[in-house]
């Protein structure tokens, strides 16, 4: 009985870890329903445990992504300033707004993002994934200047864009990326998710970062935001160590498997999976908004 309960928790964590790692999500979207619906854990306790699992997913997958040159540490550190600031602001106003309003807003945001990703055809998606063109004069290792950056506040700091550029791409619209990251951090703190569900499309669709790089970098960033919230839960006694232990171990194993699968998965399949998760989460948030 006790062994069965422990194995079930670990198996649920494993599934959430695989899926979360593949899609650049912390897995909180999957773990909270798993614990509340599947095991009858109170919502607040489920959120505390989920935050721990989100950190495990992020740390485990990000290490592998860095080893494989997929995660962009510099881009992550730039955007973390804004996600962390957003999380701080979100945490301060979290109790001032009705949860139903927040859930409704988030459902609308998720639905819009899913539709935006679906509207982009496979060819355009592949072109976007290939990202910023390479300058033929400077050679393949040198990112080309993007004419579209003119008039963009981010273009004023061209050297910063160069500094956070990766092989074959140069993030654009840094101002929009910073603003979006601020919002992603706020939503993360207000709604209890890792925020990857916002950060991945933000980096991919707005900043022109290849989808796999955006997924990996999002994984890197999620842990820092979740850690700030998890400290508060830990200090206030809001994390059940008995459930968190086996669940987090399962998440760790799942994240390791997922991060190794990611390099072998077609970007279009990854996109479809991501759209599916967006739709499911939008439905979940709509139900919360409707009470």
């Amino acid at each position, binding site marked *: 009985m006790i062994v069965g309960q422990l194995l079930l928790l670990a198996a649920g964590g494993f599934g959430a870890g695989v899926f979360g790692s593949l899609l650049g999500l912390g897995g909180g979207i999957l773990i909270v329903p798993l614990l509340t619906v599947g095991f009858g854990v109170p919502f607040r306790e489920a959120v505390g445990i989920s935050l721990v699992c989100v*950190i495990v997913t992020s740390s485990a997958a990000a290490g592998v992504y860095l080893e494989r040159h997929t*995660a962009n540490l510099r881009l992550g550190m730039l955007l*973390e300033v804004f996600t962390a600031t957003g999380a701080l602001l979100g*945490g301060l106003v979290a109790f001032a707004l009705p949860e139903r309003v927040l859930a409704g807003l988030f459902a609308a945001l998720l639905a819009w993002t899913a539709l935006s990703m679906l509207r982009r055809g496979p060819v355009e998606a592949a072109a976007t994934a290939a990202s910023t063109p390479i300058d033929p004069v400077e050679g393949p290792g040198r990112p080309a200047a993007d004419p579209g950056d003119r008039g963009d506040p981010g273009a004023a700091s061209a050297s910063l864009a160069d*500094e956070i550029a990766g092989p074959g791409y140069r993030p654009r619209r840094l101002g929009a990326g910073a603003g979006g990251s601020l919002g992603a951090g706020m939503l993360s703190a207000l709604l209890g998710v890792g925020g990857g569900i916002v950060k991945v499309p933000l980096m991919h669709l707005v900043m022109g970062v290849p989808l796999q790089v955006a997924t990996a970098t999002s994984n890197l960033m999620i842990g820092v935001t979740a850690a700030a919230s998890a*400290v508060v839960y830990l200090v206030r006694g809001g994390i059940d*160590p008995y459930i968190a232990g086996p669940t987090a171990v399962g998440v*760790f194993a799942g994240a390791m498997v997922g991060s190794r699968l990611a390099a072998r998965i077609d970007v279009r399949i990854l996109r479809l999976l991501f759209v599916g998760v967006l739709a499911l989460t939008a439905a979940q948030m709509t139900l919360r908004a409707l009470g």
Partner: protein
Amino acid sequence: MTSIDARIARILAVGTSLAVALLAIGSVLLVVGGTSPLASGWPPLDVTSLPARLVALEPAAFLWLGLIVTIATPLVRVAASTWSFGRAGEPRMAALGAAVLVVIVIAIVAGLAAS
């Protein structure tokens, strides 16, 4: 992979492995001790008594330490990145890392004050 990326990847790998090992040991001790993971209520976190409880092979002690290491790992990653970029002569990246740390400290203090 740059040396900074390699160092950060190592920190994340070691921190996560250590945390998961502690959580796994605690989970196994739960089974050995006949405690259901779904039992209502759990022993509170008491950092001062943690070493003695670890020596006594108390499941909750291993689980609490695992949770602490889990939460600390990404924060150590940011600190190490900041230090590494500073040493590598990349002041802008180091400043970004320092800014993240300041924001995290403010968030923690604000969270504790609210509790």
